[in-house]
């Protein structure tokens, strides 16, 4: 175990150095060469004896077999997945640790510690993949890299410093567990989260700039570096990623618990990992619920930056991608609800809610179908023939955004309701106003669902300008409903009568596969949405500023993209399996040589 830890730390230090050297050397390369890619004709250059740095002359280099784009795509996606996990775990570990600190319940502290065991190895993977990505960008896309360096050169220094700070906080947080006072340790966790989030915000500025460049002149020259950072989609991407990271991290944590649950040797172990899986899943689903709202904001800002970019996203080339996304998100909601419903079987007293499950399932299914109904604003003739027109032959006009927005909002409310019933499983409110509280909660649900449906139907009868704006009151009313119901629920069940116990560990194996399913689906969704965010630029490296003139300057088919995403997800889970295995070594007994009875 000690050997593994030392090796792990050693690897991390090497990766850290690699990253920093890489970032600094690339930055220096640009500075030394000055503003790059001047249009120096060969004759002029020869006349002056000017030989621009060879890097400036090479626009692209080819990666063997799969090509540069696929190579960068896979490595970038793997880096993002690990980075998301490494940023997310400290967030909910800190919250769980804080709960343990406030309640004095040691189980929470142990759970938070167990989650952070996954961090150490994952951080090494993240750093290694980040260094690899940087090298590959410099080698395969020198022209783009140099331009980005010219724009963002000053962001690399704080990035490198923050990276060191994150390593410091992370290892102190992990190895210092139980070695400091709880407050100091919580402060370390807070520092880790702040530094990690700041790192992500910087990196987000680079990629967001490529989609919605800002702070530059018409010819692409830098005018204001802060404006380049604070471009149109930077903050929506930041918010969306923070939430999505938590959802993703929670699901991977739950998958780890499921893996341990399935291999558990004792009831005690099973009970522990059942609980851990439940917590991880609650984290994932709690973050999933507001995620579509962050997605709306991001989409809105894409439209605000460029209507044509927005329409390419939602109604053009990528419109079919959102049907795949609907299948993924629908499956996520379905699996999350399923896990909760199965989980109710181990709660004594929850049987009184079983009769509602069929209605919840019907709601989830109907919403899923509506959301996944295709409708292409600019359907090609071939597409239209396949669908029998611009609308789906069976689901008809339910494929438009008015219906989809309505469906996804009701889907969120249904999942919230499932969680509410799960939470109440073995509890009975004893407060005098319980009946009134339930009535208000019920009325809130009914009113908001009616309001959301009304707006959805109304959207069919108004012009586009009005229709686009209807999604905002739909979203706000759903958020309001969840806030009101929660605000009533917490005091109503504060000193509730406990009807029975929760038999942790008494979960069928299929429930654990639901947790795997959720983690895989999250990873696949991340890959797909990462593709659309980058692919949206189509034949531009930096939208409207720097064209992609490489052999890959075309948007591949969705089938091809799905293939790349699938391979990436499989590689990711192979790496994650290694992380799980390495993390599990810490609980194994130290190796000892077999004692031999040697005759004296």
């Amino acid at each position, binding site marked *: 175990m000690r050997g593994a830890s030392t090796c792990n730390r050693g690897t991390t230090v090497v990766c850290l150095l690699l990253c920093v050297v890489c970032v600094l050397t690339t930055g220096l390369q640009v500075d030394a060469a*000055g503003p790059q890619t001047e249009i120096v004709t060969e004759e002029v250059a020869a006349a002056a004896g000017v030989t621009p740095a060879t890097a400036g002359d090479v626009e692209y280099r080819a990666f063997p077999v799969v090509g540069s784009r696929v190579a960068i795509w896979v490595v970038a996606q793997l880096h993002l997945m690990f980075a998301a996990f490494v940023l997310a775990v400290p967030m909910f570990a800190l919250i769980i640790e804080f709960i343990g600190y406030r309640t004095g319940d040691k189980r929470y502290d142990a759970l938070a510690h167990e989650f952070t065991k996954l961090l150490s190895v994952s951080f090494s993977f993240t750093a290694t993949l980040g260094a690899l990505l940087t090298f590959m960008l410099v080698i395969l896309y020198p022209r783009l890299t140099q331009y980005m360096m010219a724009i963002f050169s000053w962001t690399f220094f704080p990035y490198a410093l923050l990276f060191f700070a994150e390593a410091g906080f992370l290892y102190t947080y992990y190895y210092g567990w139980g070695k400091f006072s709880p407050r100091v340790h919580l402060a370390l966790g807070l520092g880790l989260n702040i530094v990690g989030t700041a790192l992500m915000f910087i990196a987000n500025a680079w990629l967001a700039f490529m989609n919605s460049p800002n702070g530059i002149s018409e010819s692409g020259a830098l005018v204001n570096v802060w404006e380049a950072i604070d471009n149109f989609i930077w903050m929506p991407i930041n918010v969306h990623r923070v939430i999505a990271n938590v959802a993703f991290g929670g699901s991977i944590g739950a998958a780890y618990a499921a893996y341990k649950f399935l291999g558990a040797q004792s009831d005690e172990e099973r009970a522990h990992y059942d609980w851990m899986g439940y917590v991880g899943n609650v984290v994932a689903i709690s973050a999933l619920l507001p995620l579509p709202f962050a997605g709306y904001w991001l989409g809105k800002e894409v439209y605000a930056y460029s209507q*044509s970019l927005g329409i390419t996203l939602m109604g053009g080339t990528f419109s079919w991608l959102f049907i795949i996304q609907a299948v993924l998100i629908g499956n996520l909601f379905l699996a999350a609800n399923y896990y909760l419903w199965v989980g109710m079987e181990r709660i004594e007293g929850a049987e009184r809610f079983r009769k509602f499950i069929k209605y919840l399932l019907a709601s989830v299914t109907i919403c899923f179908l509506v959301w996944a109904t*295709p409708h292409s604003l600019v359907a090609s003739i071939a597409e239209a023939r396949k669908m029998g027109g611009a609308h789906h032959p069976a689901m008809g006009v339910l494929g438009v955004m008015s219906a989809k927005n309505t469906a996804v909002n009701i889907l969120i409310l249904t999942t919230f309701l499932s969680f509410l019933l799960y939470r109440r499983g073995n509890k009975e409110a004893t407060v005098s106003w319980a009946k009134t509280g339930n009535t208000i909660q019920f009325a809130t649900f009914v009113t908001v669902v009616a309001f959301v449906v009304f707006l959805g139907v109304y959207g069919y009868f108004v012009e586009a300008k009005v229709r686009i704006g209807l999604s905002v009151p739909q979203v706000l009313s759903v958020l309001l409903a969840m806030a009101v119901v929660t605000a009533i629920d917490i005091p109503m069940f504060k000193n509730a009568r406990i009807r029975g116990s929760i038999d942790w560990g008494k979960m069928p194996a299929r429930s654990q596969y639901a947790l795997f399913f959720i983690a895989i689906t999250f990873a696949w969704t991340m890959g797909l949405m990462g593709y659309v965010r980058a692919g949206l630029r189509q034949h531009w490296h930096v939208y409207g500023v720097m064209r992609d003139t490489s052999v890959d300057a075309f948007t591949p088919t969705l089938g091809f993209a799905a293939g790349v995403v699938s391979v990436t997800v499989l590689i990711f889970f192979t790496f994650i399996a290694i992380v799980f295995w390495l993390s599990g070594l810490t609980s194994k007994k130290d190796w000892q040589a077999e004692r031999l009875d040697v005759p004296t």
Partner: protein
Amino acid sequence: MTALKILIFTVGVVAFYAYVGQMVPQKETHPPENTEIRADMTTDEMVEVGKEIAGGKGTCLTCHTIGSQEAGRFPDLAGIGDKASTRKAGMSALDYLAESIYDPNAHVTEGFLPGMPPIHKPPIGLSDGEILTVVAYLQSLGSTPTVTMETRLLGAGQEADAASDVAPVATTSPGEADAAKALLTSYMCITCHKLDGPEKLVGPSLHDAGARLNRAALYESILDPDATVATGFPPGVMTVTLKGMGFYDKVSVDELKLMVSFLASLKGE
């Protein structure tokens, strides 16, 4: 055994999603190709080319429909050749169509939100000639096209320079600008060229050098001054002067780059 089950399950779920990805329509989208614009095209030919550009490089039909009954995000273009004359009081149909393209948010049709990008600029970046053909096509929708390749549209002549195949370059920082000015002074360039005003000295003013010349031309004008001589100025003077003072022996690559970067940033503003 458990690990094997998990592996099979993982591969199965991923394979299912890969399969879903194959089930949707498959289409590769390639960058728009340039359409040949000839100066001798007839109006009918312009309509055909304009139709092609509207559906392709111009990306007009990504947002606009033609003859759709649904309320879209942008106005339907059916009959626009006729309607254009009534959209904006006091403006002819041709001028309205031209303004809609070069300055699309100057007038926004009732019931719609602003948001159309000027299509003569990147990322769409149609040339004036291509826009003429698109206007011919739009006129053909509900009216008889009147434009020819000689027609000068309202707002034409402001094509963006940035075809953007070439990486843009950051402007010089204040420190670099000072260093470049010091170099131009030490090499006595400012004896013959003015940097801060349009007045001519022995040579033309450089206060708008970046607006008149691209970086290649700036390099050329320093390294081979007689290759292109500004109208009204005698050839040979600069070459003799620079050679006489040993400029080409002294100047370094970095100094040259710095001066060209600085001159490229002078737009005459």
